[in-house]
């Protein structure tokens, strides 16, 4: 103890030295100090294994294909949020606006005769992208709580708008009559959900590859710089506002594609596609899985959806209680979410092995 050192009168007491447990925890929970490798975009074996799992699920569990397709779609939606949350540091409570915009676009096209899936999906992405680009101007300009409120406001406005335009959107009752033609001319959207499942998985994978490539590219690296220190990044010459808007637009496109997928695979669009609980649940999913890791979004979405499905018989009050406790616990003790926790465990094991 450094009690022998004289201290000025006003200096506060030094914090007591942490005991053994404290030091061990600090060590275990410290962010990894690994050597920063330049991104080389090679697929690591763990990643390959990760992607085999959904393929297996689709093949081996036919009666769960519907659940699988909805998990994949939510995964894509979560991925789009992680793009702005993890890579640009934008906290959004209104991301469902883009999801809903894509869903209504795809749904309306199909309901009015254009039932071709792939082009409908492209239109969904485009529409959501336009909305994201426009709102990006507002979102990127603000910061902190103001930005949060703007995203929330945009989400709420879109919801109100869709409710008002009930003659077009079906309002609270929902949009029906979404008649889909067979995918690629051959695969009907069947009752078992097989087509839906394969379709969503392929789209998810394609989007993931795109995003992964992006995050390792110069654009992705500059975004990380912006997230970590916008002032410095700007001083270094990165066009901060433009980059943020670009990523926000891309995120909107992906969210719109996810929405379009859900509309096409369930042949229905409801007002709840745009609702605040959807945005809030999404944020929880991404954080629980681990922000900024891309796979975290997928893991979080899977865990959340599967848990909700399995526990749906339980009184929702318990679901809320546990969700709340897990959130509080995650923020206080396990900032990296599930993947962050796995990281810690992995490092502990490796450290023990190397001894």
């Amino acid at each position, binding site marked *: 103890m450094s009690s022998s050192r004289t201290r000025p009168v*006003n200096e506060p007491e030094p914090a007591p030295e942490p005991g053994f447990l404290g030091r061990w925890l600090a060590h275990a929970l410290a962010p990894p100090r690994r050597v920063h490798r330049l991104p080389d975009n090679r697929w690591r074996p763990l990643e390959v294994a990760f992607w085999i799992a959904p393929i297996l699920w689709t093949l081996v569990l036919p009666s769960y294909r519907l659940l699988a397709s909805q998990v994949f779609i939510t995964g894509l939606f979560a991925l789009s949020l992680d793009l702005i*949350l993890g890579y640009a*540091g934008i*906290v959004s*409570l209104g991301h469902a606006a883009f999801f809903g915009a894509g869903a209504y676009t795809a749904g309306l096209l199909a309901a009015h005769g254009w039932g071709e899936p792939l082009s409908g999906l492209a239109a969904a992405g485009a529409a959501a992208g336009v909305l994201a680009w426009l709102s990006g101007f*507002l979102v990127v*300009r*603000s*910061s*902190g*709580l*103001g930005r*949060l*409120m*703007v995203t*929330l*406001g*945009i989400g*709420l*406005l879109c919801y*109100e*708008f869709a409710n*008002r335009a009930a003659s077009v959107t079906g309002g609270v009752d929902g949009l029906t009559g979404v008649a889909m033609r067979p995918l690629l001319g051959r695969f009907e959207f069947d009752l078992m959900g097989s087509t839906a499942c394969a379709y969503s998985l392929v789209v998810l994978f394609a989007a993931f590859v795109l995003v992964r490539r992006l995050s390792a590219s110069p654009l992705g690296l500059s975004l990380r710089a912006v997230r970590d220190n916008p002032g410095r990044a700007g001083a270094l010459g990165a066009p901060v506002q433009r980059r943020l808007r670009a990523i926000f637009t891309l995120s909107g496109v992906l969210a719109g594609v996810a929405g379009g997928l859900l509309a096409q695979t369930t042949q229905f669009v409801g007002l709840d596609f745009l609702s605040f609980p959807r945005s*809030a649940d999404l*944020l*929880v999913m991404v*954080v629980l899985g681990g*922000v900024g890791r891309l796979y975290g979004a997928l893991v979080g979405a899977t865990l959340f959806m599967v848990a909700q499905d399995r526990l749906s018989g339980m009184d929702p*009050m*318990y679901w*809320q*209680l546990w*969700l*709340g*406790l*897990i*959130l*509080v616990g*995650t*923020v*206080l003790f396990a*900032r990296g979410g599930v993947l962050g926790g796995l990281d810690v465990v992995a490092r502990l094991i490796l450290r023990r092995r190397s001894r």
Partner: protein
Amino acid sequence: MLLRLTGVVFDGIAYGSLLFLISIGLSVTLGLMNFVNLAHGAFAMLGGYLCVTLMERAGLPFLATLPLAFVGLALLGALLERTLYRRLYGAGALDQVLFSIGLTLVAVAATTFQFGSGQQPVRLPEFLRGQVQILGLGLGRYRLFLVLLVVALTVALQLLVDRTRFGAQVRAAVDNRAAAAGLGIDVDRVFTLTFALGAGLAGLGGALGIDVLGLDPTFAVKYLVYFLLVVTVGGAGSFRGPALAALGLGVLDVAGKYYVPQLGAFVIYAAMVVLLTLFPAGLQGRRA
């Protein structure tokens, strides 16, 4: 015509003053500790439930439960601040948002468990029910009581901030935390006390609001948007900003619904987005 407008404006002011009362705590928390506390709605809700419990179980009259709601929530706020909130002062907005959402979920689940998901009734004393005729205009007695109470509380708070030593410490800490600490102000204690005060006011507002806003477990989330709106548009860390914003919001909302009901909720959200774009720091924001 003018009489009708006055009536509508009065209703708006009553609604706005209730929002202001609850939002003060949020404004101070954000301005002083830079903490995005989305659990503030839950504090108001718990205050309401405390009031109902005291009325039903202990048989207390409504007016007696009000100071108890204030004290109860102030204590709870102090406890939470010391144990949980303190750890997250330096954390990013995301962590704070998620933490407070988590707390809100726990509060909602707990109240659902304890009270069920239905609306809670409140028995107002006789002299606060009905209307009173002033200059040919019928004003709701309870709403009049609300406005007067909030005005009194605001004056008291302003006096607290302007004339007392504690108030000076709060103002110093809001302006420059490091310098205030350097001058020997126990910033930690200031934080705890202000947080407690804010939570207590929220609880009081929740209890007062049962008759106007209703009370059920979803209260914490339902009105959160309005509280956040008041604070972001008004600007954190001050009284005048949120007061203006709350009154403006109340009047705009009520007048909008009276004169142009087709627009409905659009007006509020659109106004919020516009105002935030024009005034990113709020109308009169000051931050620590």
